[in-house]
């Protein structure tokens, strides 16, 4: 695969333009400054080989292990990282690295001051493609330090592929009735402090706030929480059921489902007023909103046909239409919509042979792709790269979170221990340039 990447390393300009057109329009990912080329030229769908040179210096082994794993989990790069060896000095023998399957070479030099000197070589062009000195933050191996290193790994992924990685992210989830979080690489799984009951969390697009459902004896409530300070307030004002909060992409509006008889979607300004505006009209059960990246439409689950199906409505509640029209699977039950950050897909759970499976539906042609077969899989949430999904799966014997690469089908287990469910993938929490 990597040798294929090398032989097709020179692509016609037309294909490059096509890739540029396919790039997300709304969530534009780090537009490159004029005159600077970002990323190797390689064919879409392949994983260019990246040779990480042996490194020395403070915490070099941890740094190499974390960067290698982040790039591997990104599913866009084939990491070639020999376990040992001396740091290379002098001129690199590019043809030798080409024979090893490397399209690029990464040189990382940790300094005592907590800065990483990074140099990326393009093998085919036999030259340095990018270099930078990027800072690490916090005490070595602390969660903050790891997160800053994830941010650097995401930047390296952007240098190589043109698309920033998603390792500097966290996943919020529910475990034993309360909220937990875990880094995208599975490290630092810990309880969110001071939450009595927490289910079905959602990230504010700033990454600085979250919302979740609190389940008490007198009903369920929606709570908004500042992540840094832990300050929380209940935003739902009525009894009965209040559930499934979601934020608009501009971060100004929260939408959640609420009701006593039926359940409907309501919009509420995140700051200030608690005057809520009804989105869906009563008489059914409308819940689980997920905004399109332009903020103009909302996917949600509704019972209006007598079974749960996924619909799309304008954000003001008009023009609701059934999205999951095609009949497939043995039971008609579709739920848990999550609109991809590039706007092209809605991921959802669909019941097939009595068990939920993860599927995506294209908003262009409504074609449906089923991504899982084994065990019960449900409740997908997109990573900011619009490529990876985190979801709940019972395939390991208990409910745990798994990460799926929707392009290659590769899966990895994210959580271990007591059952984990209801995952929400954060926006990028560190953006290193």
């Amino acid at each position: 695969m990597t040798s294929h990447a090398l032989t097709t390393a020179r692509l016609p300009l037309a294909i490059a333009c096509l890739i540029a057109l396919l790039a997300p329009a709304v969530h534009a990912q780090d537009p490159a400054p004029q005159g600077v080329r970002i990323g190797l030229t390689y064919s879409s769908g392949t994983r260019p080989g990246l040779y990480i040179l042996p490194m020395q210096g403070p915490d070099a082994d941890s740094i190499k292990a974390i960067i290698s794993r982040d790039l591997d989990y990104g599913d866009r790069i084939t990491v070639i990282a020999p376990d040992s060896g001396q740091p290379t000095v002098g001129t690199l023998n590019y043809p030798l690295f080409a024979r090893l399957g490397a399209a690029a070479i990464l040189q990382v030099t940790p300094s005592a001051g907590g800065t990483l000197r990074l140099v990326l070589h393009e093998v085919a062009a036999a030259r340095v493609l990018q270099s930078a000195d990027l800072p690490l933050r916090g005490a070595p191996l602390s969660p903050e330090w790891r997160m800053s290193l994830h941010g650097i790994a995401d930047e390296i992924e952007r240098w190589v592929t043109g698309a920033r990685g998603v390792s500097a992210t966290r996943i919020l989830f529910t475990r034993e009735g309360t909220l937990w979080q875990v880094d995208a690489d599975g490290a630092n799984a810990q309880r969110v402090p001071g939450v009595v009951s927490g289910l079905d969390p959602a990230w504010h697009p700033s990454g600085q706030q979250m919302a979740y459902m609190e389940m008490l004896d007198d009903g369920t409530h929606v709570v908004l929480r500042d992540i840094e300070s832990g300050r929380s307030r209940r935003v739902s004002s009525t009894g009965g059921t209040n559930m499934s909060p979601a934020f608009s992409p501009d971060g100004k509006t929260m939408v959640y489902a609420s009701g006593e008889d039926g359940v409907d979607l309501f919009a509420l300004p995140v700051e200030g007023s608690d005057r809520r505006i009804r989105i869906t009209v009563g008489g059914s059960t409308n819940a689980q909103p997920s905004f399109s990246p332009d903020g103009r439409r909302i996917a949600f689950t509704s019972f209006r046909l007598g079974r749960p199906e996924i619909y799309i409505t304008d954000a003001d509640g008009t023009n609701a239409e059934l999205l999951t029209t095609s009949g497939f699977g043995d039971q008609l039950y579709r739920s848990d919509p999550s609109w991809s950050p590039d706007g092209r897909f809605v991921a959802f759970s669909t019941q097939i042979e009595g068990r939920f499976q993860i599927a995506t539906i294209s908003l262009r042609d409504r074609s449906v792709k089923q991504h899982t077969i084994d065990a019960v899989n449900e409740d997908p949430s997109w990573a900011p790269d619009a490529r990876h999904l985190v979801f709940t799966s019972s395939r390991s014997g208990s409910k745990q979170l798994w990460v799926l690469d929707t392009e290659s089908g590769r899966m990895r287990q994210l959580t271990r221990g007591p059952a984990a469910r209801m995952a929400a993938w954060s926006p990028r929490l560190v953006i290193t340039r």
Partner: protein
Amino acid sequence: MNYPTRLLAPLALAVAFVAACGSPPPPPPPPAPVINQDSIDAAARARAAAAERARADSVARAEAARRAAEERARAEAAERERAAIAAARAAFATVIYFDLDKSDLKPEARTILMAKLPLLRANMNVRIRIAGHTDDRGSDAYNVALGQRRAAAAKRFLVDQGIAADRIDVVSFGEDRPVAMGSGEENWSKNRRDEFEIIVGGENLRLP
């Protein structure tokens, strides 16, 4: 020892006979008793007091017995009422069950709901909470909405029977509070339910 005694007894009789047949001087009248009125009074008082005490004691005993019996009867009645109220509360708490992914009331659920009406009608101050629950087979997150529909279905039925809507709170716990753990229809069917709880006015229930 027996011998002298046998001889003495007839002798004593003889002496007594001779004495009776002679004309002996009348014996002097016994001295008139000195009557101590105080002691008589005291004795009388003591007797009266004792009698009175005895009478009082017996009255008290009878009274105590009567009271105890009454108390017992009252306690038994209260116990019976408590038991009846507890039974009524327990009957009121009878859960109703639903089919998979469904929130419509089955005939047996309607029968159970009808049986809850008299208590609600006899206790106008009572407020209740209906909690909808699901099994863990539907969507984990959307199940909260399904539980809500189940609770709302029971509320709608009671309101249709004339119970004021503002006396009934509805909540949903989705699949998060199962009564039966594990999988299999036997467990799932126990979890697809509405629970009923008296949240106001449960202390002084009047029986229908």
